[in-house]
């Protein structure tokens, strides 16, 4: 198995331009059912299992989420990820973010990466809005003072006012989204990974959120956007990767790839 070596360097400006290189990268996910997750069942299977089904283990389904992907992303790239649901777009984003270590092939990532996927993950429901800002800031790798300094921007963007002093569990889903979005987008990354644009919230907030994200996109060095929205993709991206059952089916200028994709899918 190839191995990842994740090391967070000192928080200074990176000395070289950011890049992501994937070479024949594969991710093979085991999906376990209840029996496959139990140590007792596993021990029984190994010791008294017999030979009835020794060739394949029926309790583990193997999913090839990414299959031999080779791409090089360099400074200035604005990439769209297109493809059906389940074609490996989100898995690819997680690999690009360094969250999923590839189970085959290699990957090199260099840069300050921010992945805006499942933004509300890692929120502490019992903690207040302010405490969550601080916690998420520290988890991002900021010092205590830096994490505190995020607060004015978030106060101003979320417009949650006094609610920031209340535990997050009392928030409505819209308020929750505002806070999670504000925290996730408060720091400018070099490599920005987006899984669809924000959808929920009231229309005023959506407009505001779009402005904020587009600001991040313009200042980022590399941007990858997984989306089903053709207009958005053509406006923001220059090139596109067409994912199909975990493989890169095509990689090229965004209009061409979109046209091919719609011709193939028949829409």
């Amino acid at each position, binding site marked *: 198995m190839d191995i990842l070596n994740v090391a967070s360097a000192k928080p200074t400006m990176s000395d070289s331009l950011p890049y992501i290189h994937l070479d024949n990268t594969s991710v093979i996910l085991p999906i376990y059912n209840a029996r496959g997750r139990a140590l007792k069942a596993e021990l029984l299977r190994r010791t008294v299992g017999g030979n009835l089904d020794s060739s394949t283990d029926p309790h583990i389904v193997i999913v090839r989420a990414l299959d031999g992907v080779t791409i090089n992303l360099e400074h200035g790239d604005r990439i769209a990820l297109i493809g059906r649901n389940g074609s490996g777009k989100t898995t690819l984003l997680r690999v690009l973010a360094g969250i999923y*270590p590839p189970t085959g092939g290699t990957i090199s990532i260099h840069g300050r990466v921010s992945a805006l996927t499942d933004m509300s993950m890692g929120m502490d429901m019992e*903690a207040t809005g302010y405490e969550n800002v601080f916690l998420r800031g520290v988890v991002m*790798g900021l*010092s205590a003072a830096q994490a505190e300094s995020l607060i004015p921007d978030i106060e101003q963007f979320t417009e949650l006012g006094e609610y920031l002093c209340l535990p997050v569990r009392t928030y409505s889903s819209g308020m929750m989204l505002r806070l999670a979005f504000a925290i996730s987008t408060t720091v400018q990354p070099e490599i920005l990974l987006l899984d669809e644009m924000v959808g929920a919230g009231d229309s005023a907030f959506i407009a505001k959120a779009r402005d904020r994200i587009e600001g991040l996109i313009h200042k980022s060095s590399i941007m990858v956007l997984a989306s089903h929205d053709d207009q958005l993709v053509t406006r923001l991206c220059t090139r596109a990767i067409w994912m199909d059952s975990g493989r890169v089916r095509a990689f090229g200028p965004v209009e061409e790839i979109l046209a091919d994709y719609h011709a193939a899918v028949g829409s």
Partner: protein
Amino acid sequence: MLLPLTVVERCMMEPNSYGQLCINDLKSSFVGWRVWYTLALNDVKRRYRRSRLGQFWLTLSMALTIGGLGLVYSVLFKMNVAEYLPYISVTFVFWSIISSGIIESCSAFIESEGLIRHTTIPRATPVFRVQLRSWLITLHNFAIIPAVFLVFQFPVNWNLLWLIPGLALVIVNILWVGYFLAIVSARFRDVPQIVASVMQIVFFITPIMFRPTQLGHNGLVLMLNPFAYLLEIVRDPLLGVTPNALAFVVCAIMAVVGSLLILPFAGRYAPRVVYWL
């Protein structure tokens, strides 16, 4: 505001350098100590947020347990309460540290699922978070020991200094066992329950409520029980007894061998944890 740099270098490594991989991960975890420190503090705060007695609620309940057990068992064992209560308060407090450190580490990766699936924090960070939290919570119980010692005028002597190396060895041993259990529990979800029931059994065969000498010639159950040694090296210094060299040697060997085994194991399997959550 600058995000920290993410550098993921590809390395084709031979299986014997899985250990190096784990060491690198541990290093970045130490450099980013603020993450697990902050998360652990927040966990402690959260646990007591809605209770008025706060952190000392657990201490009170443990003090009552120790008081009750001390009164009943000193009669059963025909021992002087003034000697038995200080003994049981020390063993009980340290047992709670060891057992909660081990039981809680089973959930280290499971409860940090959101962080692991969303960020690139080093793998050892959730383990340190759980360990620090468990120590912070159980350390409150330490208050019981001086209180009991004062009430019964129990003497303390310079052997107390052995507590420092004793605690260090206990910490290292809990850390490697905890890291191992955290990985295994992420893969096999029945491990936390198994560990909890095993620790319950160990409680009864470890000299917590009884004294090792009471077993007489049937001491084999203690000789083979690693927890008996771990408990001994932190218990004896507080009781004013010069600690047994054998216990220190056994604990040191466990710490070294365990750490050497956990490095390649964690280097190999810890990166896969994200796929098991």
